[in-house]
């Protein structure tokens, strides 16, 4: 799968016009992960962000003297990494591959520079990140309701 195949499934890619899509395509590289491989670690510098092509990636919270807890998983088409856009550009969670996975990788510094240069792209990226953050907050709140416990 390449970025063209992902375009329909990705909220980010589907919102790019052809010019911006070509920019993303030219700046992307591919990364393969094997099951259990750690992609990034909580509080490390957020130097990259990703769009998942295949596989499942877990966002984990470390706990002292206990196994990490998976807060949420992301799958094909999902944007992985929001912290690259928000100062201080440090990951809030650890990301680990739950299955073998393939990702499109983008360099955060280059993308931030592209956004500084293009105000429309900058606005779009803010909107996409804000929408994604809002969606994940909504999902986290729903999980807190423990819906399935009562029927």
């Amino acid at each position, binding site marked *: 799968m390449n970025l063209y195949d992902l375009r329909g499934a990705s909220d980010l890619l589907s919102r790019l016009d052809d010019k911006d899509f070509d920019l993303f395509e030219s700046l992307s590289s591919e990364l393969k992960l094997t099951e259990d491989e750690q992609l990034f670690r909580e509080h490390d510098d957020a130097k990259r962000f990703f769009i998942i092509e295949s596989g499942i990636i*877990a966002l984990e919270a470390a706990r002292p003297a206990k196994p990490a807890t998976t807060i949420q998983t992301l799958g094909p088409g999902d944007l992985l990494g929001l912290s690259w856009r928000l100062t201080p550009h440090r990951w809030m969670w650890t990301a680990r591959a739950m299955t073998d996975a393939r990702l499109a990788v983008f360099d955060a510094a280059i993308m931030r520079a592209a956004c500084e240069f293009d105000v429309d792209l900058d606005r779009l990226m803010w909107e996409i990140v804000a929408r994604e953050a809002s969606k994940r907050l909504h999902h986290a709140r729903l999980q807190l309701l423990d819906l399935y416990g*009562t029927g």
Partner: protein
Amino acid sequence: MVTLGNPVRMPLSDEPMLPRPFAVISKKQETFDTATLGFEAADGGPPLAFIPGQFTMIYVFGVGEVPISISGHPDHPEVLVHTIRAVGAVTNAICALEPGDSVGIRGPFGTGWPNAEGKDLLIVAGGIGLAPVRPLILTALEHRYRHFCLGLAYGSRTPSDLLYRDELNEWSDAGEMSVGVTVDRGDQDWRGDIGVVTPLVKRLRCETTETVAVICGPEVMMRIVARTLEDRGLAPENIYVSIERNMKCGIGLCGHCQFGSDFACKDGPVFPYKDVAYRLGIGAA
């Protein structure tokens, strides 16, 4: 745009208030609190023919009677299959039954899932809500040619709360149906999705203007999923939900299950979402 109209209905039996004796012939413990039981008519009468989505009233002698959705194959009604979660006195008593024990059963009652032949079929279930859609899944798989796309998104509390685990794997592995499963909380062995069910819906890629969506689970979940599907272009007319209320008589007489201007036992449990959206908290003034 496809509009299918009302859920499927079938006539009541001649004596809908009279329980028939049934014997438990099989039992499978699905989870710590949920069991699937097979029942066979013990009066020599015909099996209970039903349509997917309907329910029966199961009477445990000396304990009480509860509505339970049918979860077996409608083409094989000779064994009446119910999956029951033990949450109260009667359901605890049902889950404690063993092969050879007897119960009284009335029904089947209520409306069934729509006939989606020739359309894409997207099924979204949460928790015990997988049981009422299992007959629909079994029918759709047996007549797979009737649907271009067939997808199931299923959400559960934890991996140990998943129903029909073997079947979920079979349905997925057979490649006849796109299956997505997610849990609110994983465990060390879980290698699947964690989170709410709505992202799975998107991933199944089974949403078109020709898609019929069937949703069964907690009402908050149904409301959120229906709204998500609407946002993604599905017509409310093609979205169906199953509403549970305190069904007692099963024929719309006693009023215990009144749901606005409807009775859940007679006018439901399957409703077109467009008819109940406001009652689920959407579009309320």
